[in-house]
Structure formats: structure tokens, C-alpha cells
């Protein structure tokens, strides 16, 4: 009796994924805006500007992913490399 959609779970449906994306963007936007209410208190002087932690999180993770991508070109080998 099952239609194709009935077998699908929450995460299988495209509209749910879209909603999750909206949630993620929304949460990030709210957190970034929170800096207007709670200005970041820097510890060292260079870290006290608006949105410091949001920017740090975004930029450092993007950099780590790109770095690992570059490292991957040099380091990745087939699974049976050592066999």
C-alpha cells in the first residue's frame, strides 16, 4: 500500500532539508546579530571587534577544509597502498 513518499523519512524529503537550511542560516544570523546586544569583549585587543567569533568560526573552518583538501592531493593514496 506504500506510496514512494510513505517510505521516505524526515531527512529524505527535499522540503525538510530546505527547512533545515533555513534554520541553520537563521541561527547563524541571530547569533551574529547577538553581537549588537552583547559586544564581544576582546582578551588581547585584536579580538574585540563586531562578529569576531562568527568570522573566526567561518574563516578558520573554511581554511581548515581547504588546507585538508590541498593536503589530500599530497597525502591521499588508495586503501591498498600498504598491502
Amino acid at each position, binding site marked *: 500500500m506504500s506510496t514512494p513518499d510513505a517510505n521516505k*523519512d524526515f*531527512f*529524505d524529503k527535499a522540503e525538510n532539508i530546505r527547512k533545515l*537550511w533555513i534554520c*541553520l*542560516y537563521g*541561527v*547563524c544570523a541571530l*547569533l*551574529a546579530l*547577538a*553581537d549588537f546586544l*552583547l559586544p*564581544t*569583549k576582546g*582578551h*588581547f585587543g*585584536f579580538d574585540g571587534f563586531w*562578529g569576531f*567569533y*562568527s*568570522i*573566526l*568560526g*567561518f574563516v*578558520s*573552518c*573554511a581554511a*581548515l*577544509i*581547504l*588546507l*585538508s*583538501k590541498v*593536503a*589530500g592531493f*599530497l*597525502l*591521499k*593514496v*588508495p*586503501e591498498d*597502498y*600498504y598491502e
Partner: protein
Amino acid sequence: MSSIPPAVIFILGALLVPLFRDKSKNIFIIFLPIAAFYLITQLETGSFWHYHLYGHDLTLLRVDKISKAFGYIFTINAFAAFVYAFYLKDNTQHMAALFYVGSSLGVVFSGDLISLYFYWEIMAVSSTILILARRTQRALNAGMRYILVHLFGGLCLLAGLVFHVSQTGSVSFDAMTQQSLGTVLMLIGILVNAAAPPFSAWLSDAYPESTVTGGVILSAYTTKTAVYTLVRGYPGWEVLIIVGCIMTIYGIIYALLENDMRRILAYSIINQVGFMVVGVGIGTTMSLNGTIAHAFCHIIYKALLWMSAGAVLAMTGRSKCTDLGGLYKTMPWTLLFGVIGALSISSFPGTSGFTSKTLIIEGSIQEHLAWVWMVLEIASAGVFLHAGIKFPYFVFFAKDRGLRPGEANKSMLMAMGFLSFLCIFLGVYPQPLYAILPFEVNYQAYTLHHVVNQLQLLMFSALVFFLFLPLLKRTETVSIDTDWFYRRGGHFFYRMVDKGLNGLNEIAERVFAVRFPEVLGKVSREFPWRLSLLIVKPVWILRGSGPEELEAKRDALRRSLDVGAAPVGIGAAVATAFLLLFFILTDLL
């Protein structure tokens, strides 16, 4: 009762394991960490069991807040791991695990370097058995590499210990104050166990090859006894700040490249131990507290993560991200517990990582170490990428591979539930943890600023993960790590030695076995003949022999010398000539 070394319970208990059958075996094993935990609560501070051995004062039991803190978590984790392994009836694994946990308790409660070294080596051997217990060829090979690396580390420790003891005359184990060959060698030996690059590859090589429960147990003890030893012996050694920072970033990069879920978790151990090593390097009361608190919480959430990965491996028989996905449909509890572990390792507010790791970060702020603080914050964001999201996402969500395994068995779920509870409990109410730390904690993790900043860091990290998802697509690859030098480099070395030494052998054979006897034979044949000729030829010429006659006589002489049929006179003449030559030469010289 107040002075029984806790290691004794596990080591004696291990010997009794084969006497028990079926469920009573597992119940007995679960009882041991409970007894040891109770014993540790009852231990009085001080040193006990002093022995004088070969001119050295051994202290078999030293109890203070540092050793107790590690003792508590080692026994709590052992309890959870043995509940998890309730289905397991394999004596080998149980006995190895008990020896392993017991000897790591031995390390943290040893008052001197010699007994510490003794337990250190028992740990190396028993942990190897936990890897071999999977009984696959890959595990066997990985186990052999593992023990070789640890024997190397153990030898560094032993050599350093010998230098240190002969220099200072004392075997007591306290903070090392001077940099000498001895203390540096010991530090290298300890850093091998802490999985600091370049001695780190053993961890990601061996742990993922261990059994389902072996991985859970292994993840806790070797690296954390190393952290304990650093806290005790090397607080404030600034080189550790650099080593720790490298470990945090190194762990993230490799974990991002990995495909096997247990190898991802293995690399994230290196990343997390990096934070602890930085804390030791900073060496203030705040950062040392942070290191111990973080080791405590890390053991819990890392065991939890290994348990959830182990449950997936046990139920599906797969461990590669490219083979897994969509498991949330049939393993919701394993997913839930795995996510709690993943949030804890990422120091999400409300979990134990948040209340422990921030002590180390606060330590770097108090010491005005701006670049260290930056690295730790970047690494914190990166943890959420590689362990916080990547592990649960690729295993439980991502692409549905059509796998429909059942939920993990009850004992596994109970153990995971217990550790999940601890993760959240210590996340919202860290006071019991702070109370067992060696120094007083005057720190409040939950300020509005701190929570918001941490959430900003983590949620933007999550955003990057999903935006960059195409770049993170899993490939069926492994990554070259420092084990290349002994896995591939070993082959090169073998070939080089093969060519070099066997080449030398060949040359030696050509020269000494073939050519030299040839020359020697020729000389011993030619020399008497030429010498005789030298003497008799003038005589023949004086007698008036013609050239043809001379030729014939020469050949005749040669033949008779070859067969040893020379007339006695000639032999005597040669001997006389030889003696004459000898005397002339000795006289001249």
C-alpha cells in the same frame, strides 16, 4: 584498606577471569572497577609501600589529588566499557583489558620512576593483545607495528630514566626542573605514548584495527597516562605548548581526510590530547586544572564516541563512511548517544567539553599567550567540523545505503546512556569535577558572553561544513602519515640494505673467494719456478746451451716443479736462495 594499590584489584582480578563462566564472568569483571573506584575514594593522601631495592627507594603507592582524579576516571571508564562488553565472553580480551587498566592505574599511583616504568611496559604489552584479539591479518600487522613503536618509546623512557637517576641519584618522580639528556629522553618516551607527531601514527594505525570493545578501552588509557605523566613531570615546559598546538591542528586535518569512522575518532584523540599537552606546557594552576578536567571529560565522551562507532561496526560489519549512511532510521539510540559524545567533544555549551576545555583556553588568556589562544580557538571550531558533525553526519545521515541493522544490544545502550548522562551532568554541573582537581577553581564557564561566543564559533563552523560539503566528499583512500617511514620506508630500507650489503658480499666473494685463491695459486706455482730459473739459467748459459735447449730445459724444470719431482739439488738451491734472500732482506730492513 586505605593503602591498597588500586592496580592490584585489576591485575589479581584478571588472573581469576578464566575461573568464571558465562554471565558470572561479566558480572565479576564489572564488579572490579566498582571495587577499585570505592578503594580510590578511601585512599588517604600520602605515600605508602616503601621498598629499598638495589640502592633505590621505591614508593609503590603515592596518593594525591592528581593521581586520584585520574584514578576516578580510569575506573569509571572501565566500568562503562565492561558494561558495554557484557555480551563478550572472550577471556583473552577481558584479561588483556584488565591488565591494561590495572597497569595504567599502576602508572598514576606509582611514586617512583622505576615502578612507573614497570607498569608502563605492562600497558604496552596488554594493549597490543587487545589489538591482536581481533584476529585478522590487518590487526596482526598493525599490532606488530604498534608494539615496535611502543618498545621504542619505552626504551627512550628507560634510557632517560637511567641517565636521570645516575645524575640526580634519586628515582622519585616529581616535576623535572632541568633540561638534561635524561629528562629530554624521558619526555620523548612519554610523547610517543601521547601520540605527538612525528610519533603519532601508531594510534590511527592500530586502534581502528582493534576489536569493537578493544577500541573503547584503548581510546582512554595510553594517551591519558601519558598526559598524567606530563602533568606530574613536565608542567611549564614551554616546548609542550608548541607540540600541543601542532597536535590539535594535525588531528583535524587528518580526521577531515579520513574515510574510516574509527580512524576519524583516532585522529580526534590526537587533536584532543593536543589541548591537554598545551595546558601542561602553559603550566599554571588554571591550565593544569584544565588539562586534568579535560582528560577526565575527554575519556568519557571519547569512549562514548568509540562505543557508538563500535555499535555501528558490530551491527553492520562496516566502518567506512563510503559504506555507511542513513543509520538513523534503525539505530536512533546509538545516534542520540553518538551525537551527545560529538557535541561534548566540540565543547558545545551544556556538555562536559564546554566546562573542561575552556579552563585550558582561559589559562592561555591569563598568560597573555595570544597566538596559543588563537590556535586553540581555531582548533575548537575545527573539532566541530571533523568529530562534531562529520562523524554523525556520514555514519547516520548522508547517503542512505539501504542498511537496516537493528539497534545495538541492551548492554551497549546502557553503557552509552551512562556516559551520555555524565557528559551532560558535568556540562551543566561541573562542581563535582572541579572539586577533585588539584588546585582550587575560581572560574565560571557559564557567562552569557562565553556561551554566545562559543555558539557563534560552533554554528558558523557547522555552516561551513554544510556549505563546503561537496569538498568533503568521502573517497576510498587512506592518507600517508608518519608510519610511511616504517611501513614503506622499511621496504626501501630493506631494499637498500639488500643492495648495499649483498652487493658488498658479492664483491667480497669475487675478490676473496675467487680471485685471491686464483692469484695465490698462481704465485705459489710461478714463484719457485721463476726463482729457480733465475739461479740455474746463468749456469745453463755458462755451460753453453743454445736458445732451443734453454727453452726445453725451462719447460722441463717447470714440469718437474709442478709435479714436485725436481732434483734434490735444485730444491736445495732454491731453499738456499730463499734463505739468502731472507737474510739480505732482514739485514736491509
